[in-house]
């Protein structure tokens, strides 16, 4: 048997066909195969060219121009954007993001009615879904379609629409080259592994997931703690409807998907959750929203409870400027406008401002068992930087 080329991602047909997965045909699979291969090629084969161009010609010219070393990733970006190799690389990478959207939209939109019917049969408003049609959309969601996703998480094209969720679900296996697993649930599995290794006796009774989208990260955690009541919130109804139907089709019944804003958790009592977590959510919020979310997390977390936030690493002073620049690519080129500012922050400082005390705080590397080999495709591998806190147990307990 011929072995696939080393740089090949798994073919897209390995994605798990759960009960909400959109119908698709031969050429749809082939399109995703192309995008996944192209992404991997851009990251692994051509990615190194960016740093070469920087070292060999961009940095020397920039030093001459500035008569000093560059002082920020922004100076590097402006210079790199004039480089012909980096420009074409960026243009190609941006196009793969846009193509990924076009592919899944061309599959999902023609069957939007069928998907809605499938979802309706699986959703139980009494048990696993609670929508709030009056909830205002936060400006950080309304002002930009995150990662070039037309209509973002929240646009409903028909009454009871789930197409935004289906669209998001379909493409992730291709965008991440399969690194997130057949159910795109690697982040949740990584959290479970981390808890088992670091807090083996931790048995949360009530868990809150903020910014859950389609619940792909929520489900492994709900499965690991089957006796826990899991509440997963998001501001966008179409992804929540899809999430509830998807969870039901996978036989997971201890998650309730609720339309709510993490900045206002007033519906939940203080100290009412043993675990509160987010996964690649903080960088999609504004800095003001982040502070409000953290204050609410601090309030709803029970004494002795754990909070964990999976993110990409912050741009600390010891991170080389070139690495900061390349990690910042999505902020400027993939509709992630808040990414850059978020990564300038020390999230532990924000958590401390929100009422956590310094001894309660920690950082951790949370990684899935199958981390991609080779150069990192920044922000798309199955390893995260986690910011967390364990709230001190109350006196007398």
């Amino acid at each position: 048997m011929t072995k696939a080329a080393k740089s090949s991602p798994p073919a897209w047909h390995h994605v798990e066909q759960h009960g909400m997965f959109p119908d698709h045909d031969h050429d749809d699979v082939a399109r995703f195969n192309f995008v996944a291969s192209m992404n991997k090629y851009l990251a692994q084969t051509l990615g190194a060219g960016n740093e070469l161009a920087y070292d060999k010609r961009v940095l020397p010219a920039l030093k001459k121009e500035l008569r000093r070393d560059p002082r920020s990733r922004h100076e590097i970006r402006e210079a790199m954007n004039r480089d012909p190799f980096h420009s074409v690389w960026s243009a190609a990478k941006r196009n793969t993001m846009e193509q990924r959207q076009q592919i899944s939209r061309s599959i999902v939109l023609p069957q939007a009615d069928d998907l809605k019917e499938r979802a309706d049969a699986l959703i139980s408003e009494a048990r696993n879904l609670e929508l709030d049609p009056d909830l205002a959309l936060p400006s950080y969601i309304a002002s930009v379609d995150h990662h070039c996703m037309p209509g973002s998480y929240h646009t409903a094209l028909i009454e009871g629409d789930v197409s935004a969720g289906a669209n998001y679900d379909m493409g992730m296996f291709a965008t991440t080259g399969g690194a997130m697993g057949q159910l795109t649930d690697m982040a949740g599995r990584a959290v479970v592994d981390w808890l088992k290794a670091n807090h083996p006796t931790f048995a949360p009774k009530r868990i809150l997931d903020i910014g859950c989208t389609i619940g792909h990260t929520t489900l492994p955690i709900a499965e690991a703690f089957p006796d826990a009541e899991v509440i997963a919130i998001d501001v966008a109804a179409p992804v929540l409807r899809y999430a509830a139907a998807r969870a039901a089709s996978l036989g997971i019944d201890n998650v309730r998907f609720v339309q709510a804003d993490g900045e206002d958790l007033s519906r939940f009592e203080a100290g009412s959750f043993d675990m509160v977590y987010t996964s690649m959510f903080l960088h999609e919020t504004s800095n003001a929203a982040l502070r409000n979310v953290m204050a609410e997390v601090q309030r709803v977390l029970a004494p002795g409870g754990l909070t964990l936030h999976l993110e990409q690493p912050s741009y600390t002073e010891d991170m080389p400027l070139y690495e900061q620049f390349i990690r910042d690519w999505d902020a400027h080129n993939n509709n992630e406008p808040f990414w850059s500012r978020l990564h300038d922050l020390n999230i532990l400082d924000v958590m401390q401002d929100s009422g956590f005390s310094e001894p309660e705080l920690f950082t951790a590397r949370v990684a899935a068992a199958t981390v991609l080999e080779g150069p990192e495709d920044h922000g798309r591998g199955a390893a995260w930087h986690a910011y967390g806190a364990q709230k001190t147990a109350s006196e007398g307990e």
Partner: protein
Amino acid sequence: MGAEQPGTPTAHKKQLAKVNDMSDDLNHLINKNAKGRRPQFLNTKAEEHLMSMTMALMQELAVTRERLDTLERLVAQKGVLDLPEIETYRPDAEAEAERQTAQQKLIATVMRSMEQEIHALSEQETPEVNQQLQAVNDDRAA
């Protein structure tokens, strides 16, 4: 769902129906711009379009090759087709209409970036979005 094997009459019909149901409105919706400023990577807008078209063509070429490969393997496996017949094939009216529609869909896919510029120019969406975004950022920075 998805229980039909590729190649069954139902699956084949369903697939053709999908292609033919692709109305202009639906294509417009599929090719919709994402809200937010699109960076210009290359020297001119024209180069951006050419890049997008090249990428889309590469995608569709890859897709066609994969499909052809499937077909050739199945044909070889089952011994169902005399290969020279392909050279003399002439579609009937129904097949012709289906093939012409598929051509239109292919072109709309490859020409996405031009369609998006038309949408952007006609909707004048971008400046307003950028202002909103700026306002959010200013607000947050304050």
